């Protein structure tokens, strides 16, 4: 796969000397949505967090093997520099307790953007991409905490985009949302894959099937099977994958 943007080689993670992920070899293709699926505790989120070194913020996490971003080992890069390129959105929406506008200018200001016009442009563009602009354009100074759950999650995605990442990691971004908001986010992700590479951890097999181009099935801390979503769902190679897709583990 020549257009791989992220590659994991013999990758593994241990928490407090207990191995939770081992022997992972995989590639994430650029400009596509890759879904990571698998039963609870199989190491999906751990693998995701390893891709932008967010694991390091957790105590007692040790990683083995290597993760390459555009061919460069991410452990040779500054963590801040890496996370700017590989953004992340969490399971529960995490709007900062400040206005919508300040949430959106939080990262650009850090990266040195100071002009009011330039900031306003960044705010508008990214809110438009996530379809939030029309809903909040008159309330930019309203506290982000007053938005609905779905709006908050879209704000978090828009906020992650203000750092201009190449890859966007999403850790079950819809698990705390209702059906309608989930649908909006899924449509948004399909739109975003034109510009960004997306990796999404999901429990929802239907969601993986609806939006993902590639699918990784994890089991017991190992990468069990990987294929295009269509192929993986239509023709799983391993018994465990088939069982999982049929709901045996669920």
């Amino acid at each position: 796969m020549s257009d791989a943007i992220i590659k994991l080689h013999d990758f593994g993670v241990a928490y407090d000397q207990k191995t939770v992920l081992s022997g992972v070899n995989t590639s994430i293709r650029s400009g596509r949505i890759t879904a990571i699926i698998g039963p609870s505790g199989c190491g999906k989120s751990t693998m995701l967090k390893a891709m932008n070194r967010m694991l390091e913020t957790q105590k007692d996490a040790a990683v083995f093997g290597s993760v390459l971003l555009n061919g460069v080992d991410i452990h040779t890069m500054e963590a801040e520099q890496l996370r700017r390129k590989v953004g992340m959105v969490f399971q529960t929406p995490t709007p900062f307790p400040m206005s919508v506008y300040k949430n959106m200018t939080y990262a650009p200001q850090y990266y040195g953007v100071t002009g009011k016009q330039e900031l306003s442009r960044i705010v508008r563009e990214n809110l438009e991409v996530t379809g939030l602009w029309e809903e909040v354009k008159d309330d930019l100074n309203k506290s982000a905490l007053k938005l609905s759950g779905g709006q908050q999650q879209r704000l978090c995605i828009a906020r992650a985009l203000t750092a201009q990442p190449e890859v966007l990691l999403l850790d079950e971004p819809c698990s705390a949302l209702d059906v309608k908001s989930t649908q909006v986010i899924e449509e948004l992700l399909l739109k975003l894959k034109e510009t960004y590479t997306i990796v999404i951890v999901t429990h929802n097999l239907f969601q993986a099937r609806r939006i993902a181009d590639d699918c990784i099935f994890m089991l017991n801390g190992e990468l069990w099977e990987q294929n295009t979503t269509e192929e993986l769902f239509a023709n799983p190679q391993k018994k465990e994958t088939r069982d999982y897709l049929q709901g045996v583990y669920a």
Partner: protein
Amino acid sequence: MKLKTALVKLWAVASCCLTFGVIFFLFAYIFAKGAGAITWEFLTESPKGMIIGTEGGILPAIVGSAWYTGIACLFGATLGICTAVYQVYYCRSQRLSNAIALVMQCMAGVPSIVMGLFGYTLLVLTLGWGKCILAGGITQGVMILPFIQVRAEKALREVDQNLVRASYAMGMSRAYTVRRIVLPQCLPQLVSGVILGACYAMGACAPLIFTGAVIIAKVPKDLMKPAMALPYHLYMLLTQGTSSVNAYGTAFVMMIIVLVTNSLATWFAWRNKK
């Protein structure tokens, strides 16, 4: 079982009543004894009389105390909050963190008169500052440092870590995250911790005896000169038997200041919690 519950309830209510009763009595007694001394002159003039303190007012002591307390807060809050930030967000070694906590506990346990002796030896003698407002303020600052640090550390640990992680996940540095997310989040607790520290410093006499407080001085204008302080003035008025009326008046003013600043801290914390 019912009797047991009733007894526990009675015990709790009685303890509450006793605590409130003691506090109420203390305030009522000081107010009753001291309110008579409070006049405009008492608040705006310097101590006078054949024996200093029998007549006139306590203005230099009020202003002096404000200076001592202000410097103590500046010093104690800066170091206390920075230590807490380091401990919670920068220190990777559990051992070092434990060591800091131990040092803070020891500092909190040092008697204030010993703290005064430390300030006297280091600032007044070794650095050659002499008795002055700066030396007194810094000594008090060292005294309230652990007081502020403990509260700041608790507040910092209570900040929602999901927000902190969300900030890191965008590539923000720790310093930026602390400045933009963490500190604004716990500002109410930090401010109320500093104000409580201020009340503690305002009432402490021992650290000032060797380092800054004097029996009589003009309204202070220079940090490198000694100044009067309310608790020291009160101590002198009582121990020298100068004027018990003015002593109660001074105590009354001190308690009003402490009460007002404490209420401000509570109000500030409450307003920001809403």
